Structure formats: structure tokens, C-alpha cells
């Protein structure tokens, strides 16, 4: 295998610095003891993390985001498992359309989904409802789950299922004891990527959250447009931490390169 020359490695180092710099500075500033956004040159302090935990708005938004992400990821998986079985295992009229429909939120800008949901919620009188917010998030995370599930289902050997059937197992038993365990990496990987995407979502949510359902990214956006203090850095560092944990889990159960690059 050929190696990269020195010029290539310098270029590569600069790109890595460019990609990491904004995240690193946020994590450093979060530990500042000062009152202004500054690097912690005179020792580290946790005061801004304490400030976050004592800020009722941020605490409430954190729980909103967490519940929203858990519910929408779980429900999206529950809908996507049967739907992706239908798409991968049967040839039926409208199959191509359904596939395109389920993946469409990937190519519709979240801004457009946001204003569209806002209009729908106004028409049906659902403005500010948490349940409808969950449903809206299900729409944007389902495509990520579907992609992994379709890959997992079409990648596995049907003869194992057929062996189970021929040995007299019922349909329900085969699904529970054979199919589900075999697609489990796709299910858990899909759940995690759905969780991350819902937890991070800003552009659609900003149109359809109400004061009581504001999510963490929306709260941060609102806060950052008015004032910026190190508390924003502390919240950001916490979000980076949560994302890092989810990313490591994702890497363990599914392989991050497989999810991001799509090498199935």
C-alpha cells in the first residue's frame, strides 16, 4: 500500500484541525472560571456546568429533548421494521413509491418540513402538542432506520427461516426467534442513529415547539441569538459528551463507518 507524502500529511493535519477546532474550543471554554467567553487560562472551573443544571429552562428542554428522542426513535423502529420487511420481501404494486416515500424526508429540507408541519398543526388544532411533535420527529428519523433495516433484511440468509418453518415453527415464532435476532444489529443501530438525529434536530423543531415543549437545540438557538455567555459552552460540551457516548455505542453495535459511509 502506498503511503502519503509529507505535503499530503500536512494538508491532512490542517483538515483535521479545521474539523475539530470548533468542538475543542467549546469544550475548553466550558471550563472557564471567568464571566466571559474565554479560554480557561487561570485554572478549570465547573461553575458554568452548575449554572446549566440550575437553569430551569435548560433543564426542562433537556428532558423534553431526551423524551422526544427516545419516543420518536422507538416508535420509528416499531413502524420501520414491518415496513422494511414489506419492501424487501414482497413485490407489489406501489413498492417503489413506498420506498421513495419513506426515504423522502432525506431530500426535503427540514425547513420545508417545519413550515409544512406548522401549517398542518394549525389546521388540525395541534399546535404545541408534544404527541404531534413526536410524530413529526418520527418522520425525519424513519428514513435512517429504514436504510439500515433494508440493508440488514436483504443481507441475510432466508434459508435459516425456511429451515425453521419446515421444522414446524409458527410465523410468530420464526419472527421472534430467527428474523428479529438476525436483524438486531440493524434495529439497535437504527434506533441509535434515530435517537441522535432527533436529539440534534433544530430546523424543523423551531417551527413546531411551544414554550412548554422547546427542545434543547431550539432553546440554545434562542439563547444564542440574544446573549452569549460561557453557559452556552457548557451546554454545548454536555451535548458533545452525550453525542460521543451515542457514537461509541453505535460504533460498537453496528460500526460507524458502515452507517456513515454505507459499506454494507
Amino acid at each position, binding site marked *: 500500500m502506498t503511503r502519503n507524502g509529507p505535503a499530503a500529511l500536512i494538508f491532512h493535519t490542517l483538515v483535521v484541525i479545521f474539523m475539530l477546532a470548533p468542538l475543542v474550543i467549546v469544550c475548553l471554554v466550558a471550563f472557564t472560571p471567568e464571566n466571559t467567553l474565554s479560554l480557561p487560562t487561570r485554572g478549570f472551573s465547573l461553575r458554568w456546568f452548575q449554572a446549566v443544571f440550575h437553569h430551569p429552562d435548560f433543564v426542562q428542554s433537556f428532558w423534553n429533548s431526551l423524551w422526544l428522542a427516545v419516543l420518536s426513535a422507538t416508535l420509528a423502529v416499531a413502524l420501520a421494521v414491518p415496513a422494511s*420487511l414489506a419492501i424487501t420481501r414482497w413485490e407489489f404494486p406501489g413498492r417503489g413509491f413506498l420506498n421513495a416515500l419513506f426515504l423522502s424526508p432525506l431530500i426535503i429540507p427540514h425547513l420545508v418540513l417545519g413550515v409544512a408541519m406548522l*401549517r398542518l398543526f394549525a389546521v388540525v388544532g395541534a399546535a404545541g402538542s408534544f404527541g404531534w411533535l413526536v410524530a413529526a420527529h418520527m418522520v425525519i428519523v424513519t428514513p435512517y432506520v429504514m436504510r439500515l433495516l433494508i440493508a440488514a433484511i436483504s443481507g441475510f440468509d432466508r434459508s435459516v427461516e425456511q429451515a425453521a418453518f419446515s421444522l414446524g415453527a409458527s410465523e410468530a415464532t420464526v419472527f421472534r426467534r430467527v428474523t428479529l435476532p438476525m436483524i438486531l444489529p440493524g434495529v439497535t443501530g437504527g434506533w441509535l442513529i434515530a435517537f441522535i438525529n432527533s436529539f*440534534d434536530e433544530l430546523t424543523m423543531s423551531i417551527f413546531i415547539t411551544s414554550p412548554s415543549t422547546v427542545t434543547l437545540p431550539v432553546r440554545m438557538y434562542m439563547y444564542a441569538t440574544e446573549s452569549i455567555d460561557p453557559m452556552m459552552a457548557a451546554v454545548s460540551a454536555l451535548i458533545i459528551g452525550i453525542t460521543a457516548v451515542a457514537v461509541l455505542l453505535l460504533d460498537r453495535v453496528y460500526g460507524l463507518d458502515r452507517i456513515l459511509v454505507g459499506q454494507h
Partner: protein
Amino acid sequence: MSASLPDTAPASPGDETPVRRFPIAPLFLSAPAVLLFAALVLTPLFLTALLSFNQFDYATGRTGGFTLEHYLAVVTDEYYLEIFLRTFRISALATAICVVIGVPEAYILSRMTNPWRSIFLLVILAPLLVSVVVRAFGWSMLLGPEGPVNGALIALGIGRMKLLYSEGTVVVALVHVMLPFMVIPVWTSLQKLDPAVEQAALSFGASRATAIVRVVAPQILPGILSGSLIVFGLSASAFAIPGLLGGRRLKMVATVVYDQYLSDLNWPMGAAVAVILLAANLIIMLTYHRMVEGHYRRRLG
């Protein structure tokens, strides 16, 4: 993605398996998801398209009737023309920079050996999963008046510069957000490339540059094109970056839609701009599909 192609449809002769006897089964299985998508994708988009043709009364805030004035405003009003032009300019610039940085970086990554390759692929791609608000905030600190970039400029004797709330800052932050979307498709097409072909070119006396330009580049061109279209589409509809780093003056299409909806409360006007944005995005994506399909058909035929 190839997994979703029809060639993965059931082809095995297991017709006696009970799951396949009822053609109604896939409809049952997909029904919940179909209901969700009909209710929360198709219906709201349809309602928004209708809304964009409604008249808006500034005095009462009521909407109704039929008019084309919002669409006409977009193509005649200087304010909207300028915003669409600026969005196009910023997105095109961000896309070009992503090509210039992302393509060589993907090539360098592909020539690394493990474990470095996996580690750096993770470093380049993982920021994709961190909320865009956090990344925008990171850039506002890096480029702020007291930030390290200005510190370096002062140390170099150039002096403090006002970096925030400029088109340049928006472009830089967009490149940071979009770079993974360029690296991924280029990386994927590099994976399909047989390194022996490049080796062959080199052993026949081609220079490194010739090998890259004549052998590698043509094969990863579809990857570059697909990355460019994705980056351009996402940049043109980006909201958080111009919202947080563009300030009040530097509006892009997405921030204008936000203003129309939540400040001016002129929903029909906002809907018209959103519909145009959606149409532009769909055209870009469909062009991409046609191009990629055409490319493979040519290669196969």
C-alpha cells in the same frame, strides 16, 4: 443503497412458506408507516402548497382567496432576488471549497493504512452527528473578537478583524458542516477503485500527477458530482449557520422563511419561498439521479 434495488426481491423457490401466500401482507405491514407519512409528509406539503397561493391581509392577518403575487414577488422584488442570489453564491462557494478540500482529503484517507484510516475517517465524519447549533457556536467563539483566530491575527501584526456576521464566516462554517457529505461519496467511489490500475499507470511511466488526473479522477467523478449536489442542496437550505453567524443583515433563504413565518406572520409569502426551495432541491436531486444512472448505463453499455 444498492440494497434497496429490486434485484433483492425474493427469488428463492420457497413458495410454501406461509408469509408469502397472502399478497395483502405487505400492505398490512407497511400500513402504519404509510399512514404516518401520508398524514405528516404528503398532507402538510399539500397544505403548504395551497397556502402559498392564498392572499394575505396585513391589517387583519387573514389568509384566503387565490393569488400569484407571492411567487411574482420572489422574481420581481429586489429584496427576494438579492436573498436568492446571495444564497446561491454562498452555497456555490461552499460547494467549491468542499470539493477542493474534501476530494484530496478522501484520497489521502484512502491511502492510509489501518488503524489510522478508521480513526481519521471517524474524526472527519463524526462531527456530522454533533448538533449544528453547537458547531455554529464553536465557530462564533473561534472567530469572535476575543477568539483565537483574532489572537493569531494580532500576534502576526495584522490586527483585529471583524470576522463575525460576514459572508466569509457563513461560508467557512458551512464548509465545516458540509465537508463530511463530500468526503463520504468520494470515499465510497475510491473504495470501488482498483489500486492496481493506478499502480499500472505508474509502472508504465506515468507521473504521479498524470496517474491522478488521467486514471483516478475520471473514476471518482460521479462521487464528486454527487457530493457537490448534496452539499449545494443542504447549503442552500441551511438555517442554523446563517441564523447564528450571519447576523440580522445577512439573510439567506431559510432565515427569510423563518422571519416570514414567525416575525412578519405572512405565512403565504413564507410558504411560497419554501415551495420554491423544495422545488429547487427536488430538481437538484432528480438531476443527480439521472446523471448517476446515465453514468452507470454508459459504463455498462
